[in-house]
């Protein structure tokens, strides 16, 4: 008995000595922080993200998979500007909620999307659209003579896409630039001329025209228009104010205020809300968003469109959360389940393609996760999901603009590129209050001094989560393989505390300590610029925790 006790005591003391000499090496370690307790992108969500980044990375003039420009109207509800803008918003919510400690990929994609946004093919529709008034065209079709008193603008239009009206373009650009600056602390768009629009139509024989904007000028032009228009909203097309188009510049102004300490958005929100209420932009009887307001006639055209409610609601929720959440149940009841399934060959109206996508986005923002999941399942079942180069999307169908009908079972099968490339993916990624948090709980400047990862080869690896938990002084990163097979991948960890010692854990196993001057675990090395390089095999998903020792 004594012998047994002595052996047990010897073994225990030996184990303790080994544990002290080789602390934790290769053993399961303290699971705090546990990567599973932080948001991570699923395989499908990561696919949506990669698809949007793939679109961002196309050449400026390459619109493959993004549909066509309408030959009659020159733009439509699936126009490039909307795909590009909403892709940036979707990537913004991804970065904010899942990968705040993985900056370079999202920053580059955001800048690419802004660059694509100011490429002429995206905005030069305005040279044509500025010439006519669609609301009058409707009257002409109804047999009424209209536009009998043409102004100079009516005849010639104007090419500058920001200077007046066209808030359906300029408002998005403002939101994009504001988000870029907020999320990446990157003020490149404050430089005069950083948003230069170049119009150089060789065929007309005229010289190139350059319109130079920057974040400040764009903000001022839009803020002034709100004021000039007595806060009734800036026109998208001529004579037509859409509520949803005016939400995006409001979010852009909120970003501007955050960066510059101004209060431009405060007045616009207050006054625009007054007009919305007074003029029933959202009908208090039906709780649905108007179609548009005819300016010359001073007439609100009511509507019951899921897209209008989804589009306006997801953005207005950012600054009018309680109200939007109060009317959402009525809207949902109105559109579901009839939106998803009806009589075969039932005319769904020309909007169904984006009715689906925009309502899914609203559902995600207000946190109706059941509805979001139902719609994602529906899209996966009926919209022919496709994987391409690591990206996941729903390819647009032929005739997506003018295809009004369901299939023989009564399901929607018509998908436009805005819905298929961006909106469904955005809805699947966006958590409850996803956009609300970006604007109402913005990152402080100290966020940009926290440790983060960079320089991961996008072709070989995807980062499904990258979070720095300040309370635990720990960086949590999870990688999965990318579309290009590779035996190893590397990533760089920046801004680790130089006077700290960190424990490195991989998939919960302790690999060793990291400190300046100390021995490093295998697969890690200090780089000349003081950052840490970590190299790993990546045949399957791996999580890393780099935690400061207390």
């Amino acid at each position, binding site marked *: 008995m004594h012998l047994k006790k002595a052996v047990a005591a010897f073994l225990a003391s030996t184990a303790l000595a080994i544990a002290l000499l080789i602390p934790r090496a290769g053993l399961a370690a303290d699971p705090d922080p546990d990567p599973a307790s932080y948001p991570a992108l699923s395989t499908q969500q990561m696919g949506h993200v990669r698809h949007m980044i*793939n679109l961002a990375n*196309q*050449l*400026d*003039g*390459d619109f493959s998979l993004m549909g066509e420009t309408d030959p009659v109207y020159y733009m439509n509800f699936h126009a490039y500007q909307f795909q590009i803008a909403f892709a940036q918003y979707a990537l913004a919510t991804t970065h904010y909620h899942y990968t705040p400690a993985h900056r370079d990929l999202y920053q580059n994609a955001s800048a690419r999307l802004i660059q694509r946004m100011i490429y002429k093919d995206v905005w030069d529709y305005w040279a044509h659209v500025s010439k006519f008034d669609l609301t009058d065209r409707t009257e002409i079709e109804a047999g009424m003579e209209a536009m009998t008193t043409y102004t100079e603008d009516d005849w010639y239009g104007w090419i500058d896409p920001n200077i007046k009206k066209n808030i359906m373009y300029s408002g998005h650009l403002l939101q994009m630039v504001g988000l870029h600056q907020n999320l990446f602390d990157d003020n490149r768009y404050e430089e005069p001329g950083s948003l230069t629009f170049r119009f*150089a139509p*060789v*065929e*007309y*024989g*005229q*010289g*190139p025209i350059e319109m130079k904007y920057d974040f400040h000028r764009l903000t001022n032009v839009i803020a002034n228009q709100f004021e000039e228009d007595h806060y009734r909203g800036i026109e998208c097309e001529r004579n037509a104010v859409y509520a949803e188009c005016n939400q995006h510049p409001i979010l852009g102004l909120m970003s501007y205020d955050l960066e510059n300490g101004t209060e431009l958005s405060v007045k616009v929100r207050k006054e625009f809300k007054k007009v919305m209420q007074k003029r029933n932009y959202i009908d208090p009887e039906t709780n649905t968003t108007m179609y548009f307001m005819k300016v010359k006639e001073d007439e609100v055209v009511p509507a019951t469109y899921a897209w209008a409610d989804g589009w306006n609601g997801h953005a207005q929720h950012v600054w009018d959360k309680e109200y939007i959440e109060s009317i959402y149940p009525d809207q949902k009841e109105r559109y579901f389940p009839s939106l998803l399934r009806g009589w075969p060959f039932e005319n769904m109206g020309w909007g169904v393609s984006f009715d689906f996508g925009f309502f899914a986005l609203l559902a995600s923002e207000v946190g109706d996760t059941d509805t979001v999941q139902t719609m994602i399942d529906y899209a996966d079942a009926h919209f022919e999901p496709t994987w*391409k*180069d*690591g990206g996941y999307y729903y390819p647009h169908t032929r005739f997506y603009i003018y295809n009004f009908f369901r299939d023989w079972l009564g399901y929607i099968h018509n998908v436009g590129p805005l819905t298929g490339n961006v909106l469904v993916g955005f809805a699947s990624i966006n958590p409850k209050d996803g956009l609300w948090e970006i604007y109402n709980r913005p990152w402080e400047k100290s966020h940009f001094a926290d440790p983060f990862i960079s320089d991961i*080869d996008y*072709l070989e690896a995807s980062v499904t989560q990258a979070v720095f938990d300040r309370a635990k002084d720990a960086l949590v990163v999870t990688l999965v393989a*990318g*579309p*290009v*097979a*590779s035996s190893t991948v590397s990533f760089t960890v920046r801004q680790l505390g130089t006077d700290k010692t960190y424990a490195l854990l991989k998939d919960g196993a302790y690999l060793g300590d990291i400190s300046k001057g100390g021995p490093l675990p295998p697969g890690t090395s200090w780089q000349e610029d003081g950052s840490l390089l970590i190299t790993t095999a990546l045949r399957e998903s791996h999580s890393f925790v780099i935690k400061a020792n207390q």
Partner: protein
Amino acid sequence: MYRALRNFVALILVLAAVACGSSDSGPSSTGNIDPDLVREYLLMHPDIVFDDEAVSDAIRRALLRRGQGRVAEERQSILSAHQELLVSPLTPSSGSTNTDITIIEFYDYQCVPCRVSYPELQQVRATEPGIRYVYGQLPIYGSHSIMAARAAVAAHRQGLFPEFHHALMTIDSELDMTLIFATAAEVGLNVETLQVDMRDPQVHQYLKEMRALAEVLDITGTPSFIIGGAKLSGGITAGDLKSELDRQRNQI
């Protein structure tokens, strides 16, 4: 009398418009006609440029040529600003560096029109040894195109770009890493070194800069060719290329 003068001015305008569109700054063929008089007449009767079909057409064509000339000049100026990139040790090229004409091809190894144009380009390169040919990597067909472009630049470091380029351009299937590395081994490349070079940040940066050049040249797809100040887009035949070369030579 008035009609005769009007016709005469119209003729002068046509000649002036043509001269305006050409790069010939030599003596005017208008002889002793006083340009100030023509100008004065025009200011008094501006409608002539609209009323006379030949005049308005000549003016339109002259404006078009002026616009095209402006674009060509811009391209030349962009290329001058990017000379360092175009002669970088990472940029594969062939032919004489001491030449008046350079062809830059922007291409992707998975682009079908690029592959179809390849034998046509080989024909031109064989028959036009005096031109310089620059291989501009513009991988736009996804991840494996980017990897192929990295591999091509890495192959250039080993001095085997022409062999590797030929092999990739004549493969009739989609690329993956197995195929890229097998092709590299087949042409005699050290695959291990190739893999290291493919990860070199300098190579990645180089490809970014080449893409930025393509974008500033307003290239929207592959293949695209910059020949002097001209841009040709899409698949090309040896005949197309020779015609453009002849046109360029006539301008020099």
